[in-house]
């Protein structure tokens, strides 16, 4: 029974929680638009940019730090910090 439970548990897709990225250099709408476009193209369902706090919130797809950093770099900016909940 335990084995069955573990098998079901590990066969479920990983829960896509919320990821928050602190971005350096993101100071205008066009910066935010470029970042949004990159994450949408990568399959992220929800991308919300907060220019005041200089953060990008992602929901709907789990991504590694390396994948996130690559997309932010391709958009022309730098990652300061990535947090998840």
């Amino acid at each position, binding site marked *: 029974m335990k084995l069955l439970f573990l098998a079901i548990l590990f066969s479920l897709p990983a829960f896509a929680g919320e990821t928050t990225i602190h971005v*350096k*250099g*993101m*100071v*205008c*709408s*066009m*910066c*935010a*638009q*470029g*970042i949004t*476009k*990159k994450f949408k*193209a990568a399959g992220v369902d929800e991308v919300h*940019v*907060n*220019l*005041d706090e*200089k953060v990008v919130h992602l929901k709907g797809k789990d991504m590694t730090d390396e994948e996130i950093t690559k997309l932010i*770099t*391709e*958009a*022309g*900016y*730098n990652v*300061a910090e990535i947090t998840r909940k």
Partner: protein
Amino acid sequence: MKAIAAIFFALISFKALAHPVMYQGGWALNSTNMSQYSNNYALYSFTNRFAAGFEHDRFDKINLGILKVNSLLWRDNGEDHQANVYLHSGIGFQDERKNPLVNFGLEGDWENRTLYTSLKHMQFENFSVSQGRVGISPAKAPFENLQTWFMVQAMVIHNVEDRVMITPMLRFFYQNVLWEMGSSTRGDWMLNLMVHY
């Protein structure tokens, strides 16, 4: 009536602007129109440091068509600001002239959410253009909202019209669209429309 026609023409003809280099895979379309000067271009950014495309310029009665390559030489992504230095280069044709012309330029900018400054110098073979801009935004609008800037542009077209053209303008941002409307101290209108895709 002329101004209304010009606005209508700009709106239907161009979805535009852009920085000289954008994010990887991004398109930048720009149309700037003044009585003595116009600049229209379409650029594609292959990486976040390299873009190429086509540009049409008009300086008074001189017309140029240029294949452009722009490079981001340096960028500083700060906590609250961004600064850039770009290199412009191109090869193209001027009016009836048979030989191709070469064009180079340097552009630098510094901006945060309430202050914008830029300097640009473009060198052509028989003339050059210098341009500077300063802008302030009275409020930090969220990404989803319309943002408004008050801006002043100074521009000289050396060897064509050596007087400095001072143009105060209003700049508006809405997500990926930027448009500017102004009138020079000599009463010449200016319209600029830019879009990033």
